[in-house]
């Protein structure tokens, strides 16, 4: 909402400096987007008089003029001398007062006036038309000022054309502030000043022009679409440019002046917040000597060409104004129809001042993607109670500015008159909710300023009865008044306190602490946390080669910003692979990322999807580039597995197993480099090398190892403590054992067999080497070297004891593994 300081000042006393008002706006809740000086861009334009007018010797239409510009042009002694200006206008005579832009002047649009020669004659300025000064569209000649105009003074100042426009952002609950009158009321409450607005009134309702009711009737088909419709007829309008004051105010409010009829409707809308529409009465069809306005829901298949020239397809949710129920002539509350538009030939005008239901207007505007000054106000609700008053203001201006005759009366269809809200306000409640010592008298006074009728109780604590003004739909409950009082009193002045929070304790839950631990462990293992979009490309799973099985149906976004973010992700890996590709494309080779986030599994017949949390990681390149004293290998399967093992150990999850992942079930992983992660028999997720085919689909050339785990079982199986284990006090005995076994024997199988063969004395089994050599070990075989530690809890083992136990173990293991001891 653009608020003209000069216009506002005509209705309520304002501080000298607009910045003081801006501060008050901000303090009381009106956001200020910008403050703009109007006229500031025009400089060096002065009033002048034509002293001499001589035809230009080299032109048949130009004149060489001597202009009196007062002290703006002086001789060496400082005495005013006439200024020579070449002028092409035809509408002036010697002695006329006009407006001259001096050399160095700036005109709207940044036009600079320079010294120049026109057909050989020097010109030291320019006489201006009102269009050149940005006042209106008149370019028929230079401006002729009244005979009593002073000469040689700043034109803008003399005409009072300087102004400040404060552009305010109006929140959706305050449509009353989308009008200058509403703004004046708001400011009066803010500054505790009176409003003194004088509104135009009709001078004479003309009997010759007839009664509106004889010329028009109005039918509202469905009052839920249109609570009130007033129609008024004015006749014999003389379409032409608006008077300058009107044009200026319309411009200050942000519209271009068009013609006096349109400008009046716009002006009154800016003044009152009530959108008006003017129909060319002559373009509406006549039946029984009358025009018949019917407001009804649009019909399926109906359309209208709106004023902007667009053909709009209508739906039954939209309201239309129709000519006798047949042709739509306006899209109610949004935009008029081209078929009834005011034009140069318009003689009689039917003026609509109506109220339309805001929901329909809002949906219509959204569905047609069509916003107008009218729809912005209607969708926030207009003051139904004042439609008729506003119509009268407009009629008065048609009379004053368009030479119109105003027909007697109006047609006012208003089936259910709107009642103002009556609210009980308890001053103690205000003070209790605000935590501030606001005086009861302050409440009453400022609410009155806002246009409320207030009946106070006897004492400071007695409730008051407040009747809200009809343009404040946001004031229906006590709390609404609390807000008004508090913002005017000053939120900044309320003393800050902290709640007592009796009988309440907070803090993170066990699960939340465990989630933090998951992330902290992954970071300490070397992975950095990232965040990717929860949106997915519908082709992501296919590209990765990941089956949809178990992932429900996609959650599809109805209007995605881009097609490759058309649904919600069902897996974390595609987004992470995109991050790997991004890094590689930007020359970053070493990538280690994890993300903890949600995936979305939709289900037929359920509105909302399941949203399990996954934790996933991707690793590519090395942990770091080689340093002078530290070398790094390329990250492989065992690095990823190591991260997962570290994580599970940190969470103290026991009975962890890694099982070969079946390539048919894990087609996005490289066969032979893929494992399922289990704990206590429950599948937690997987770890493995991403299949090169999938990497290719994501534009990655280098190997990537990854893991993905469901968070829920991690949180469930995690333990905050494990039982204490006795720290050994007696020495153990370590013996190495190198076993040659078939390649098909897994570490898990061999180590299990050693453990089960070990008996009570075997304290630990650690693998320290895996060795393959066709000559020394044999084809299809591998040597696995273990360090075994024997220990008894209650005595120091003798060498005989150890030997006995070890020999027994070796015999059993050779038997159970089919291997042999490597010498």
């Amino acid at each position, binding site marked *: 909402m653009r608020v003209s300081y000069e216009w506002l000042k005509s209705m309520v006393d304002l501080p000298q400096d607009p910045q003081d008002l801006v501060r008050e706006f901000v303090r009381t809740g009106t956001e200020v987007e910008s403050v703009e000086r109007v006229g500031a861009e025009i400089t060096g334009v002065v009033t002048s008089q034509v002293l001499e007018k001589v035809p230009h010797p080299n032109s048949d239409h130009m004149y060489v003029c001597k202009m009196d510009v007062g002290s703006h042009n002086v001789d060496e002694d400082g005495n005013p001398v006439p200024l020579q200006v070449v002028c092409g206008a035809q509408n002036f005579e010697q002695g006329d007062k006009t407006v001259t832009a001096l050399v160095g002047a700036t005109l709207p649009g940044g036009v600079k006036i320079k010294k120049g020669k026109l057909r050989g004659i020097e010109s030291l300025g320019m006489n201006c038309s009102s269009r050149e000064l940005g006042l209106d569209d008149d370019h028929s000649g230079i401006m002729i000022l009244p005979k009593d105009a002073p000469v040689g003074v700043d034109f803008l100042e003399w005409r009072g054309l300087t102004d400040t426009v404060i552009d305010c952002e109006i929140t959706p609950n305050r449509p009353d502030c989308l009008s200058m009158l509403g703004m004046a009321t708001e400011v009066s409450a803010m500054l505790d000043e009176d409003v003194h607005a004088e509104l135009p009134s009709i001078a004479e309702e003309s009997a010759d022009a007839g009664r509106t009711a004889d010329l028009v009737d109005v039918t509202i088909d469905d009052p839920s679409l249109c609570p009130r419709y007033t129609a008024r007829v004015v006749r014999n309008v003389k379409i032409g440019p608006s008077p300058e004051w009107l044009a200026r105010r319309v411009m200050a409010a942000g519209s271009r002046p068009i013609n006096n009829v349109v400008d009046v409707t716009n002006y009154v809308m800016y003044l009152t917040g009530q959108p008006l529409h003017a129909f060319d009465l002559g373009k509406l069809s006549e039946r029984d000597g009358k025009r018949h306005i019917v407001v009804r829901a649009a019909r399926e298949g109906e359309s209208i060409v709106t004023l902007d020239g667009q053909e709009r397809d209508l739906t039954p949710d939209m309201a239309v104004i129709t000519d006798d129920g047949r042709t739509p002539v306006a899209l109610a509350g949004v935009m008029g129809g081209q078929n009834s538009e005011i034009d140069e030939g318009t003689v009689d005008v039917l003026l609509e001042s109506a109220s339309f239901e805001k929901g329909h207007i809002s949906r219509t505007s959204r569905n047609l993607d069509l916003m107008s000054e009218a729809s912005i106000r209607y969708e926030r609700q207009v003051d139904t109670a004042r439609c008729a008053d506003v119509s009268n203001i407009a009629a008065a201006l048609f009379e004053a500015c368009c030479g119109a005759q105003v027909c007697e009366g109006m047609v006012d269809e208003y089936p259910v008159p709107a009642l103002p809200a009556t609210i009980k306000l308890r001053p103690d409640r205000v003070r209790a909710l605000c935590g*501030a010592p606001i005086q009861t008298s302050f409440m009453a006074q400022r609410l009155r300023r806002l246009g409320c009728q207030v009946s106070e109780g006897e004492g400071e604590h007695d409730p008051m009865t407040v009747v809200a003004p009809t343009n404040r739909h946001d004031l229906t409950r006590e709390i609404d008044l609390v807000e008004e009082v508090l913002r005017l009193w000053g939120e900044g002045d309320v003393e800050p306190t902290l709640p007592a929070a009796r009988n309440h304790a907070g803090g993170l839950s066990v699960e939340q602490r465990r989630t933090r631990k998951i992330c902290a462990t992954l970071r300490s293992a070397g992975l950095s946390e990232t965040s990717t979009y929860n949106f997915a490309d519908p082709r992501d799973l296919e590209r990765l080669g990941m089956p949809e099985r178990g992932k429900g149906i996609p959650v599809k976004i109805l209007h995605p910003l881009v097609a490759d973010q058309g649904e919600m992700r069902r897996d974390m890996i595609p987004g992470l692979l995109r991050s790997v590709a991004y890094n590689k494309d930007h020359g970053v080779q070493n990538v280690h990322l994890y993300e903890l986030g949600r995936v979305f599994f939709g289900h037929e017949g359920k509105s909302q999807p399941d949203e399990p949390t996954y934790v996933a990681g991707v690793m590519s390149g090395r942990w770091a580039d080689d340093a002078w004293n530290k070398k790094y290998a390329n990250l492989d399967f065992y690095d990823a597995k190591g991260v997962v093992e570290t994580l599970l150990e940190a969470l103290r999850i026991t009975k962890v197993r890694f099982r070969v992942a079946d390539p048919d079930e894990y087609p996005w992983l490289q066969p032979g480099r893929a494992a399922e992660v289990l704990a206590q028999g429950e599948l937690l997720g997987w770890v493995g090398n991403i299949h090169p085919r999938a990497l290719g689909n994501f534009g990655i050339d280098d190997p990537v190892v990854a893991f993905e785990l469901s968070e829920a079982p991690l949180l469930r199986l995690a333990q905050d403590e494990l039982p204490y284990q006795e720290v050994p006090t007696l020495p153990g005995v370590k013996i190495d054992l190198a076993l040659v076994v078939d390649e098909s024997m897994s570490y898990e199988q061999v180590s299990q067999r050693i453990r089960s063969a070990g008996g009570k004395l075997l304290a630990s089994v650690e693998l320290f080497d895996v060795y393959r050599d066709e000559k020394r070990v044999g084809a299809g075989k591998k040597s696995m070297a273990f360090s075994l530690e024997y220990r008894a809890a209650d005595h120091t083992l003798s060498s005989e004891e150890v030997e006995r136990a070890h020999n027994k173990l070796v015999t059993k293991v050779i038997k159970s593994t089919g291997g042999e001891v490597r010498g």
Partner: protein
Amino acid sequence: MAMSDDLNAIQEQVDQMLKGAKSLEDLERVRVQALGKKGSITTIMHMMGKVPPEERPTMGKLANTVRANVQAAIEQRKVQLAREAMERRFSAEEADVTLPGRRLSPGTQHLVNQIREEIEDIFCGLGYTVEDGPFVETTYYNFTALNAPEDHPSRSAKDTFYVEDNAPEGKEAHVLGESDVLLRTQTSGVQVHVMEEKKPPIYMICPGTVFRPDTPDANHLPQFTQVEGLVVDEGITFGDLKGTLDYFTREIFGKDRATRYRPHFFPFTEPSCEVDVSCGVCHGEGCRFCKGTGWLEILGCGMVDPNVFGYVGIDPEKYSGFAFGIGVERVAALRYDLPDLRMLMTGDMRFLRQF
């Protein structure tokens, strides 16, 4: 007095040999020569029997003195040699301390989550719980129960990502492009879930991902992070809201920062306001960073609207409360003067590892 001469000669000889001893092995040789079973001093000690009895005490004393001296000299030389050996080792092992150390490279936490955890910790310190809710939400929880009227502009598909409703039967028709299911545009809906499930007193925050159809640019992301807060208790005042948010602001931005409360409008709170923090660059004077205003907008808040209590069956005469919403990316951008929010979403290691 031959024996005493011998002893003195031995003493001198040992001193000479010790000077020449360059290692512990040399030293051991000297010890054996002098004090070993067949060593010179031992030999003399054995000869003590042949010394006339009247001289024995003098000779014995002298011999003992020489032995003690020799022992001490060897010990002293030993210490000296050990020190020299250590010095040689130190000099051999001298390091260029300016060479880089062998570093571990733990990963870093995403900037947004760092700030989110910081906010969680601040409010946990004030006794709040941390709550959670679905990202794919119904219009009821995202709008209706938060007092946003049916036709509120924020419900439009321009401001909300609607998703296909997989259970559309029996529901009313909608404006084109809208449905009953959406990606939550605010974490405020969690308020409603919590108030449905718990009785006051409620002191909670809900940090989480939210979505709005803004094309990504330097200042916007279609997916971002919000921390919603809610307090419902007896006797909660607007002053409590201010005290809480003043505390939060100082914890997160610094003790020297001021706050400003500007009345505003949100459907689910009344009175509502926006909170600004004084600019950390110019301290309120006005600069490029704060666009000349001296203030930076950081959050929206207000007293819980009684209508919201109505939806969840809490008596607004008995209880009052406040709610607030903080944009985490906004805090990150303010704190680090980030030139482009999109960096938060690329996974660029060079960006992530800075924080």
